[in-house]
């Protein structure tokens, strides 16, 4: 089948989805993080009764509102794309995706229509405590809303809690909790929302630094920075911890992605972690600077542990219990053949064959030995299992490097705030201001690792992207790609210009 697929269709469909998701992710993390910072700032206001904190909260709330308004519903386009460009995938996924997305829709609807309105309109109409509760509920609602979409994404990386129905060609959810609490879902959710918290903290610090550079709003800026630095430091440490958990989960369930992030072609014991090197798609990394044993230790808490390489996965490694790609492809083709035979038996009204073949899909041995590799049956060349190694390698290092930079930045800001030396080091204020784009870059790099690193799969091991696309004209996808690029760029320009105008105006007097 893969040979018959128009690769330009797959590439344009992927590019369009990546573009939409990347733009969507520009708006989302600030909403996730800033909502909690508003809640903390307003809590201080309610506790202290100091109107300056109300002023601080209201200013950041305005910026939150701008970001929320521009970003709202940009994710819906992804759902349009599922139906139009990825119809095989959408059908195959069945109700697995439907349930989390429906819950996400309900959460988003109630949160947006109720608590956000109470938060924005209720300053002079609700009691302080009721208003504060609304603000907290907006924060929890926004982050819970993100939970469901991330659960859906995690299922694509680690399909669990489902059973394939050969009559409908759809996966049916057998255990909601397996989907919700899969190790991939938990770590993805925690790591992703925490990245939003860090981004928001740097945003607040950067904007406050601008006020200090302009010698405006001294008290406002220092107080905003103190909240952001504490929040940012705690969440950035948590971000590193959740990143570590995520990494080990990937090593276990997506070993090819893990090997690609390390550009590890040949598996080894006592594997070193590459700090710097020139990775290659097919060869070992050159000009490598590595810390011996660190990769094995970080992955398995054991310096002598064996870390699987790309070649182990392609060629197999019996000693380490790794099945070869050729064997998986063979088993996948058999699983596809059973599905085809079942379809033909139904068509020819061959009841005994139909009954026999149908029973295979309920047989745990067939599920475990063959259907588990269903997606491999679409592939002919084991090399197609290898994602873009240099891109995955570098994206991972950009993300991790920036993650550690953020921890240091928050420590520095916190130290300057407590020592009351913020205004004395202008270059540090400039550094804070210029750091605003960095968490956005880190977030995008993280998604590149997650999504490029798991290619060729749309659903890990079950459905490759080439088999997931709709049979539509690649030209139509190309047109909508450029249309989206124009729409989202316009929205981004609108957001930045409205936000800059509000920032220049500064917080209003109460």
């Amino acid at each position, binding site marked *: 089948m893969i040979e018959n697929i128009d690769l330009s269709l797959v590439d344009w469909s992927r590019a369009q989805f990546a573009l939409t998701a990347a733009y969507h992710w520009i708006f989302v993390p600030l909403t996730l993080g800033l909502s909690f910072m508003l809640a903390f700032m307003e809590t201080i206001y309610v506790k202290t009764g100091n109107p300056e904190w109300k002023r601080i909260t209201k200013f950041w709330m305005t910026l939150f509102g701008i970001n929320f308004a521009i970003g709202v519903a940009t994710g819906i386009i992804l759902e349009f794309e599922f139906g139009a460009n990825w*119809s095989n995938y*959408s059908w195959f996924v069945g109700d697995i995706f439907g349930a989390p997305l429906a819950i996400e829709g309900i959460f988003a609807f109630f949160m947006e229509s109720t608590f956000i*309105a109470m938060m924005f*309109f209720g300053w002079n109409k609700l009691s302080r405590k009721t208003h504060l509760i609304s603000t907290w509920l907006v924060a929890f609602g926004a982050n819970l809303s993100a939970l469901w979409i991330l659960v859906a994404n995690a299922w694509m990386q680690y399909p669990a809690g489902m059973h394939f129905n050969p009559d409908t060609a759809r996966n049916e959810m057998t255990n909601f909790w397996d989907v919700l609490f899969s190790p991939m879902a938990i770590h993805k959710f925690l790591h992703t929302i925490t990245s939003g918290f860090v981004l928001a903290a740097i945003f607040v610090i950067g904007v406050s630094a601008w006020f200090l550079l302009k010698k405006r709003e001294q008290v406002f800026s220092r107080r905003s920075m103190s909240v952001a630095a504490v929040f940012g430091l705690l969440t950035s440490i948590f971000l590193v911890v959740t990143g570590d958990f995520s990494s080990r989960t990937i090593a276990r369930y997506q070993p090819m992605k893990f090997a690609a992030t390390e550009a590890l072609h040949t598996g080894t014991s006592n594997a070193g972690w590459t700090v710097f090197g020139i990775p290659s798609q097919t060869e070992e990394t050159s000009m490598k600077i590595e810390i011996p044993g660190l990769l094995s230790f970080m992955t398995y808490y054991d310096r002598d542990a064996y870390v699987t390489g790309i070649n182990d996965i392609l060629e197999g490694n019996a000693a380490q219990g790794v099945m070869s790609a050729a064997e998986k492809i063979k088993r996948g083709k058999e699983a596809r053949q059973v599905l085809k035979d079942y379809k033909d038996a139904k068509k020819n009204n061959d009841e005994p064959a139909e009954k026999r073949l149908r029973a295979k899909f309920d047989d745990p041995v067939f599920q475990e030995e063959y259907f588990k590799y269903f997606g491999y049956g679409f592939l002919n060349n084991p090399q197609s299992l290898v994602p873009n190694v240099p891109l995955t390698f570098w994206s991972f290092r950009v993300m991790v490097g920036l993650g550690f930079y953020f921890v240091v930045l928050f420590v520095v800001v916190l130290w300057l705030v407590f020592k009351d030396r913020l205004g004395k080091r202008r270059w540090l204020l400039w550094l804070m201001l210029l750091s605003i784009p960095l968490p956005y870059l880190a977030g995008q790099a993280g998604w590149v690792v997650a999504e490029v690193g798991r290619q060729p799969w749309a659903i890990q091991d079950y459905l490759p992207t080439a088999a997931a696309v709709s049979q539509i004209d690649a030209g139509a996808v190309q047109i909508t790609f450029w249309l989206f690029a124009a729409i989202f760029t316009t929205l981004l320009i609108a957001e930045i210009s409205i936000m800059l105008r509000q920032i220049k105006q500064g917080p209003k007097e109460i």
Partner: protein
Amino acid sequence: MFPVCYFNNVCTFERNKFFMNSHILYRVFKFYVDGFRSMTVGKTLWMIIGIKLFIMFVVLKLFFFPDFLKSNFDNDSERSEYVIEQLTK
């Protein structure tokens, strides 16, 4: 409190639930109306949201993103058959 008479001609004063519910709805309605009226930057944002939703749901959804399986097949059975065909060919 409002007078309420039952079938046995016993009349009492009770809270009128309908009135009260209407009153709450009115207050909620007024809460939103006042909120929208007092917006400053929000008006621009609502305009952007309106244009954006129009482009997404009317222009993009209708003209560029018809659901492939829904628009090409009449029922789920046909859709299943098509996808199985795609997965096994």
